[in-house]
């Protein structure tokens, strides 16, 4: 099949990124931006390559990735279960939903002293903050997904004389899947932000901690290499999830 590697918009987007990076490189190389402030992108890439090749920060990278994956998994599972519970209990939902709506107005990180007291300076405290930050996105997506299952599909399930568990597995969850996946995508993004940000303040390891450490020691080279690594990890993961998300969304019809 003759499939295009990139759409026209994709090529334009790529061209913009390349042009911006080249301009940034030029500004750094010609001294408009001092290297003591920001490294040229090629130096950042070289630093990242060095970091990956030497394995100097492998422990931190593994720690961050495992914390992100653990936080995302907990958020997705917990958010999904809580979403289903709220969906089946309209009165409880009516009570809680206004609180969920204003949830992201509260800066979750203010609770970090509480988590340190409860969990100590450890991965558990980081995961707790990341879960706190990401779980509500999954709850909201689960509620939206279940709300938007067309009523006619429930009637169809009744015609097939399905039990509630059979309907849930064969009709409800597949029908809600595109919106549930949007929740997974958001939960992952929030978990990533939560973990990196928490590592700055309540950790002795992880990429966030390593960036803060490098910054405090005027180690620009490693700091920018690690920052580039964070950007690449976040955008690659998000691009992969977004590709799946768009594929699933394309199955949701306009008519529904």
């Amino acid at each position, binding site marked *: 099949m003759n499939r295009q590697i990139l759409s026209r918009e994709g090529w334009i987007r790529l061209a913009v990124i390349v042009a911006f990076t080249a301009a940034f490189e030029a500004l750094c190389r010609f001294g408009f931006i001092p290297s003591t402030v920001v490294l040229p992108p090629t130096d950042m890439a070289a630093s990242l390559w060095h970091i990956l090749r030497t394995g100097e920060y492998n422990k931190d990278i593994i720690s961050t990735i495992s914390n992100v994956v653990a936080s995302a998994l907990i958020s997705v599972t917990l958010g999904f279960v809580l979403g289903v519970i709220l969906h089946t209990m309209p009165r409880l939902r009516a009570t809680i939903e206004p609180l969920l709506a204003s949830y992201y107005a509260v800066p979750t990180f203010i609770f970090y002293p509480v988590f340190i007291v409860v969990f100590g300076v450890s991965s558990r405290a980081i995961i707790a903050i990341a879960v706190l930050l990401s779980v509500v996105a999954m709850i909201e997506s689960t509620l939206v997904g279940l709300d938007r299952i067309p*009523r*006619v599909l429930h009637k*169809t399930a*009744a*015609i097939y004389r399905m039990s509630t568990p059979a309907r849930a597995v064969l009709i409800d969850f*597949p029908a809600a*899947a595109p919106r549930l996946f949007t929740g997974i995508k958001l939960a992952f993004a929030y978990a990533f932000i939560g973990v990196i940000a928490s590592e700055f303040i309540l950790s002795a390891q992880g990429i966030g901690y390593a960036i803060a450490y490098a910054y405090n020691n005027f180690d620009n080279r490693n700091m920018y290499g690690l920052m580039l690594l964070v950007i690449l990890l976040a955008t690659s993961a998000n691009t992969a999830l977004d590709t799946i998300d768009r594929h699933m969304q*394309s*199955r949701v019809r306009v008519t529904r």
Partner: protein
Amino acid sequence: MTEPESIHARLTGVTRVFELSSGATLRALGPIDLDIRRGEFFGVVGPSGCGKSTLLDILAGLSRPTEGSVLFEDKPIKGVPDGVGVVFQEDASFAWLTVQDNVAFGLRRAGFDAAEIERRVEYAVGFMGLRDFANAYPSQLSGGMRQRVCIARTLVLRPRLILLDEPFGALDQQTRLLMGEELLRLWRETGATVMLITHALDEAAMLSDRVGVMSARPGRFIDFIETAWPRERDSRIISDPRFGAITSRLWDNLRVESLKTMGTTIQKASP
């Protein structure tokens, strides 16, 4: 009432009252007394909101009547009975399954063996003109084709009573006529009893052996028109002189009832 041995479904004194959130009640349907004959193609027309879909839900076992009894094959309906298939007005295809998996869905649920599923699905998909789209997903199909998927999914289970709730409502006139022809062909081949709810008088007149006209809410049957068409018929029947007489009689009845509905709406809308 019809002879007992030829009755496939019988509704006696059926009413349906809904309780509104304000605490008031709304009488949506009835009382309805109706016999549907075995193998009959029975059409139902009525003004908007007269309870046609409520009637279908009751007959399908999706909703219980407030009063009265409903029998299917001489047994009272408690829940969805075996042998009943429903095609809804809305698109009920499963977006996450291909056309052939949609069609096979009920067969798999019913535990048919793989060879039988394949045989029935292949036939139904071909019969509904979907062979070239067997591996497509519903989002890749037009509205008419998706409705055909739903019809095929219902028919592969070989229901003895097929209930259709405005299945062609979203289609253009030409497609409706052709889909109507396909429906007649299916009805002849399967020998099933069909109840078709429709807004379109020409559709009801062309497809049905008998058309029931419902009143404005609460819906009751105010007229039954025997079309007396031959079993072998298609959309060309619309050029028959009697076709005009049938649709004219349907409209005479329906016009009065529709005006009642509109009058109520206008009165309510007025300050």
